[in-house]
């Protein structure tokens, strides 16, 4: 008998394990191949239209709708992207939409987080009534109030201004609810410690709650930004001057008015989608992680 180290013992055991493992591995391998194939089909179906849009942006006018179909252009027409990015109307629309979206996001985060803090942490008369009222607004469908909202903004002389795009949708019961849920989970003891140091509610909100709000702000901020960036129906109702059209309006108009310039249209669409795609890829962890909560609210 000679002594074995644990590592040697393991080595001796391997031949005994191997046959069994090999059989399992083969089955695993077939299943894995199948899963991989199905997965690739899902990925293909999800991404193909987007990839096609980006590639079509490099095609000549007539090539976008050419039979037989070719995924890649014969000659890469970089000038489509160059032309759309040097087109003053497109750049103005892009800047206008971007500044509106940033303003909208900032406003909605401010307004909703303030309300969320009051509902989560402060006591005041009629709290329950107000809370129920706010939550009820979540269930009012847009279509029901579309025309009456239009009447309201007309009476407030907001038509055709940045205000009509930014202000009406800024307060949102869903955002208040979401941020409030987050604030409810911040330990009371932190607050009590701050209070012992002489902080009032205002300073607790500014110094304690806001710095801790990064995670919900990222999710809510992206949601707000996306909803502004992608909105189409409200802008076509309230904006009349073509110079003040938002991006989606611009694209829809471009499609109906310059029907032959498909390469540029695709390049423009790709450029309009690029910021949100990049934003999503950067923050995908937070966004996807949050979906679980969205489903179970």
């Amino acid at each position: 008998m000679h002594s074995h180290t644990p590592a040697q013992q393991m080595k001796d055991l391997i031949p005994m394990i191997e046959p069994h493992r090999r059989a399992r591995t083969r089955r695993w391998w077939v299943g894995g191949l199948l899963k991989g194939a199905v997965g690739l089909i899902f990925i293909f179906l999800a991404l193909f239209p987007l990839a096609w849009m980006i590639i079509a942006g490099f095609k000549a006018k007539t090539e976008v709708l050419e039979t037989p179909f070719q995924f890649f252009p014969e000659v890469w027409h970089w000038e489509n992207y160059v032309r759309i990015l040097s087109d003053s109307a497109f750049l103005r629309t892009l800047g206008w939409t971007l500044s509106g979206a940033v303003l909208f996001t900032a406003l909605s985060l401010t307004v909703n987080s303030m309300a969320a803090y009051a509902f989560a942490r402060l006591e005041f008369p009629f709290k329950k009534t107000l809370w129920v009222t706010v939550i009820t607004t979540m269930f009012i469908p847009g279509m029901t109030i579309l025309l009456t909202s239009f009447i309201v903004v007309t009476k407030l002389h907001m038509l055709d201004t940045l205000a009509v795009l930014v202000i009406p949708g800024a307060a949102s019961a869903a955002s208040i609810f979401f941020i409030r849920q987050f604030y409810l989970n911040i330990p009371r003891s932190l607050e009590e410690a701050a209070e012992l140091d002489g902080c009032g509610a205002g300073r607790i909100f500014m110094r304690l709650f806001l710095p801790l709000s990064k995670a919900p702000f990222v999710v809510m901020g992206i949601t707000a930004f996306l909803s502004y960036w992608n909105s189409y129906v409200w802008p076509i109702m309230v904006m009349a001057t073509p110079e003040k059209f938002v991006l989606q309006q611009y694209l829809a108009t471009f499609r109906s008015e310059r029907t032959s310039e498909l390469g540029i249209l695709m390049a423009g669409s790709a450029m309009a989608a690029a910021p949100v795609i990049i934003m999503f890829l950067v923050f995908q962890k937070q966004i996807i992680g949050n979906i679980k909560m969205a489903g179970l609210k």
Partner: protein
Amino acid sequence: MATTTASAQLAEAGPGPLAEDPARHRRYTNRYAGFAYLMLAPAVILLGIFVIWPAIYAVYLAFQDWSFYKAPTFVGLQNFTNVITDPLFINAIVRGLKFVLMTVPIMLVLAFLFSCLVVSVGKRFSTLLKISIYLPTIISTVITSIIFTIIYDYSGGLLNWAIGLFGLDSIPWLGDPKYALKAIAIPAIWLGMGLTSLIMVSAMIDIPEEFYEAASMEGANWWKKTLYITIPQMKNILLYLLVTDFVAALQQYELPLVMTNGGPLDSTMLPNLFIFSHFRGDPTAGYSIAAALLLFVVLGAISAGIFRVVNSEKSVD
């Protein structure tokens, strides 16, 4: 006095501690009431002006004969009876239900398969799958419409080229009433899959692994495990998704608005698009608002009914 107890001393000293004086206690807990109202004011005022007031106003206008050009007169239920007896509106509802049948079952089945796949593959691949499936969701309806309109193009579109490979004749997907609604269902599924799938994935991950281990010991195959463990465990989330997807699909109108504007021959005139076109085309608004309210009430009742059934079963379990 040596016999005086501590509590008697306190009682002598004046009003008792906070808890014994309700008014003072309330004053203490509400000490930030003014600040709270200040914090609430922006959100509540905005919601009041742009959501609550328009909603009240909508209910009011639904009972009025009104237009931008004349003063409202009360007409009772006239608008509602006009809506219910309008064959165009009824047709739009039926079309909406057809659209639901074209989109929701496919979405739920695909999302279920997708979730099964995601929970059974490695971390990297599952992340890649989740990102891919969610990416279309963030793309705007307008861009989606542009992409798919060109794919559907009659003479040079990708789809007609593809079916041409199988020897089929080109089809005017968006120009033929027979195909237009189906053609719009596909981008609707493409856009809507992400959220449904990811909610399903997170529900599926939550099912305890032990259930499957026990089933494997008894020799259950994948199909049996799905039928007897996965689906029953996910019953609530599946019903939740069924309701939310149903409501969302029935309310879809941006896609047909941009892609076909309701045509050809009204074949893609979904309920909300019908109402929206009325808004823009008809100066008497009572009809459109009554239609929107009716649709909302019916949808709300259906969702509430389904949730009630779900919850009552849950309490029995």
